[in-house]
């Protein structure tokens, strides 16, 4: 005997016996089961689903979810210095208000008329971000920074007809893994070879001699991050781009957009394709569920025709109104299936709207202020913490908001230091063991505009205590 609902369910308007009977009468069948006639009996479920008990009462469901959530600890009650692809920044309240608007949240595709406002917000995302990154074309978002980089590399491979990318040895391993999958394994005929560029062991910056040695007419693209995964401002961007251009390769730069009130927009130093993360611009960390990525280029048809994303163009109606609609949609997988540019699907478009809100609130002055505040406080923290006995800065290059602390001198592992810090209500930077040899005792430490001098000093005092324990 099937387990049936006892009352109508709040999520289902027609879960009322009289309504179901009326609908069945119109169809002209005796029971709902008759409507499943296409499915052979032997395909049907034989045993119950064995699901946990239903909680149709919001009262009880709320209690259950809340009981679980209360087992979490947050970066609000603790002081966190964890970064590395997901960062704690200030999120203006207006961003949350718009992110939660029911119309935006429930929009699916719509048309340029029915969902005009949403389409305009998408266009404004591209427009505002375009000003920040210095590009005339910005695609609608992809899933993450790693995806943005991977798609950009694939764009470069199609543009150049070459199948090799050079990228930094010190790239984020998570991002690299996403890129590796998009570059395909060796067995695939369309595999893109990944060659790592070494780094200067003192500064942490790219080793340009190594880059030059590895560049050739087989290279489709040179990819690098600025700031880098380990927080360093790559000071020789123009030289890197010039080297790539000399060999006919595209330059792809991954950039943290919150740095761009104070750092040069990548095309200024020669980037052809700009990619990066969306999360810093008004999106909460969301336990990692705040990530998203963008792709931007010059407005040239050869680039535009390689985008795997949705593209929204402005237009005017005959009634002198603004309108916004898809452009070049046919080149996507929706138009061409396997012949399309990679693939297109649901992405993180609601975050694009939040990015637009954030950049509109910030304006040019807000972006400058936040950039200055971050770079000053991060540098203060780097110096203050590296002054602690047994703690050192791993690299001497200029930093923006993250830096690498080496705990080797304390004789303690990163895990042991962080465990100690937690007793002070502090989440220390994440260990960099995944980066390989030479990084076992290192921690990537993140300081943003939300960290006051007092917070940093508190971290320093706790670290002094833990280093000496």
């Amino acid at each position, binding site marked *: 005997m099937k387990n049936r609902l006892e009352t109508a369910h709040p*999520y289902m308007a027609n879960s009322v016996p009289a309504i179901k009977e009326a609908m069945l009468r119109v169809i002209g069948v005796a029971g709902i089961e008759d409507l499943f006639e296409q499915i052979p009996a032997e395909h049907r479920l034989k045993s119950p689903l064995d699901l946990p008990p239903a909680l149709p009462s919001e009262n009880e469901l709320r209690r259950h979810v809340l009981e679980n959530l209360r087992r979490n600890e947050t970066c609000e009650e603790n002081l966190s210095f964890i970064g590395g692809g997901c960062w704690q920044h200030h999120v203006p309240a207006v961003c949350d208000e718009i992110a939660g608007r029911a119309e935006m949240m429930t929009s699916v595709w719509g048309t340029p008329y029915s969902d005009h406002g949403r389409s305009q917000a998408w266009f404004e995302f591209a427009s505002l971000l375009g000003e920040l990154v210095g590009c005339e074309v910005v695609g609608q978002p992809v899933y993450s920074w790693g995806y943005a980089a991977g798609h950009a590399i694939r764009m470069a491979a199609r543009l150049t007809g070459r199948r090799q990318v050079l990228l930094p040895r010190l790239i984020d391993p998570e991002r690299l893994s996403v890129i590796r999958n998009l570059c395909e394994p060796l067995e695939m005929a369309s595999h893109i070879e990944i060659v790592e560029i070494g780094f200067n062991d003192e500064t942490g910056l790219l080793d340009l001699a190594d880059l030059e040695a590895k560049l050739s007419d087989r290279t489709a693209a040179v990819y690098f991050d600025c700031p880098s995964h380990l927080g360093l401002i790559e000071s020789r961007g123009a030289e890197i781009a010039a080297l790539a251009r000399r060999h006919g390769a595209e330059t792809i730069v991954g950039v943290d957009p919150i740095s761009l009130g104070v750092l040069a927009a990548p095309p200024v130093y020669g980037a052809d394709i700009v990619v990066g993360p969306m999360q810093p611009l008004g999106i909460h960390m969301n336990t990692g569920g705040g990530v998203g990525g963008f792709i931007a280029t010059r407005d040239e048809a050869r680039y535009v025709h390689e985008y795997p994303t949705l593209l929204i163009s402005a237009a005017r109606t005959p009634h002198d109104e603004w309108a916004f609609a898809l452009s070049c949609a046919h080149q996507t997988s929706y138009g061409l299936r396997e012949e399309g540019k990679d693939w297109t699907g649901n992405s993180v478009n609601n975050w694009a709207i939040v990015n637009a809100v954030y950049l509109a609130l910030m304006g040019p002055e807000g972006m400058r202020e936040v950039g200055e505040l971050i770079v000053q406080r991060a540098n203060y923290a780097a110096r203050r913490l590296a002054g602690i006995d047994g703690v050192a800065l791993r690299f001497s290059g200029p930093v923006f908001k993250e830096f690498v602390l080496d705990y080797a001198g304390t004789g303690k592992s990163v895990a042991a230091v962080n465990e100690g810090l937690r007793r002070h209500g502090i989440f220390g930077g994440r260990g960099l063991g995944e980066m390989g040899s030479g990084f076992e005792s290192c921690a990537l430490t993140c300081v943003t505009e939300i960290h006051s001098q007092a917070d940093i000093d508190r971290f320093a005092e706790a670290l002094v205590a833990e280093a000496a324990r």
Partner: protein
Amino acid sequence: MTEATKQSKLRRYHAARWDEPVIHEMGHPGRRGAVFSQAEEGVRAAVGDAADLIPEAMRRREAPALPEMDEYDVLRHFIHLSQQTLGMMGISLFGTCTMKYNSRLMEGLTARPEVRAVHPHQDEDTMQGTLAMIHGLDRILRALSGMDRFVFQAGGGADAAYTHCCVTRAYHASRGELEQRDEIVTTIQTHPCNAATAATAGFKVVTLMIEENGYPSLDALKAAVSNRTAALMINDPDDMGVYNPEIREWVRIVHEAGGLCFYDHANFNGVMGKLRARELGFDACMYMLHKTFGAPKGNGPAVGAYGCTEALAPFLPSPLVVEDEGRYRLDRDRPQSVGKIREFWGNVPVILKAYAWARAMGEAGIDEASDLSVLANNYMEKGLLAIPGVTKSQPHLTQRRLEMTRYSVGKLQEETGIGIFDIANRMVDFGIDAPWLAHEPWLVPEPFTPEAGELWSKEDIDQWIAVLAEVAREAREEPETVKTAPHNQVVHAFDPAPLEDPDHWAMTWRAWQRKHRKGKHD
């Protein structure tokens, strides 16, 4: 006219029309929407000016040309834009997307710091509540599918299809057969993301066409599979509502050839609680948490939950959430894993919303929902086919369709010259979201595909049908009204064709200014 349409009075809707400027046209020099304090004196004393901390060559010289607005103007602008967005505020029966109620409880709970202000690299001990619920959803999806393990890293349904392609590569590579197995078989009625992700992953794509029965024949499948077959990627039912009853035989044939079988369960709503992917023989499947499992769409953030058998589990992306005697942890020590599909471990708020939806529904609720979805679709069919000029795909297939049916206004177009795009543009004048049409290539002329699901009331469905009946009447009696639609929307009709022209398109304000500033809109 059916009884339903007679009873349903058309609403006199009009969209909000704010004549809202593009944001770059707004603001005034000097206005501020967000301010930050200067760094503390101690900080400045220690490190000096920000400019001196940045290598000269990398300093920004020219401020970004962002608008300068006060906080309220920004709020108001985006509220206006949201008011100019229909979303689900009218009636949206957008086929293949399974429009559902998105519980406001979970919007509220996932806005709490226990979700928002958590970093995915925190110590596992500080995330036990979230991990417990992720594991709970894994268990629920295992029960629904018969699979052994789920992962939530994929950022959407297409990304879950891509996950399958990556797992397929790793599986065949582990057996030394990847070079040989370079083909993925799919069908023309399977979502294009399957073909597209297979191609992106480096496979050749073999696409089978549907035949007389509404699905490709076993003979066509047998001719397509070989020792080059890496996998089958298929949905069932398809988005015409046709269920392939030979699916078990399909799986057997592909397995016999050495390929894996992936069940794209995007169209799960009509069969959830009715059948299990694993019991049909599939090795893997995926569910869209932002569709079937009640989380909002908004074109993402989304989650494609990917599940597979024990045999494929070692290849799943890392990390996986595992339970050890009541404690949850993230297992990263998985040497055969494909690594990362996407950074971190999924859009956590979406996963939690899906968990709560499944708990709110329970077994009886899920069973009721698939019942109601199929009931609503068959109820709709009665009303829609009563409209002159509307036909359904494959009319010779007489068995009841599942949760969706593909219709055509090809006949109406022949008779009136009014096609589905005109009709869609007119329907939005009544507060009805434009219907889903069909993926390319169109297999029936002038298609549309509504999906009522379990959310929308009988009254909503009646209203939807009544609106289409009214637009079809207009097509015959006052065609200009339809051809020049919309009339009650935010903006009027325009020609999108120039947006394909590089000299005309403008994806940013900068590009617009360069290309059109000297035009008449200056």
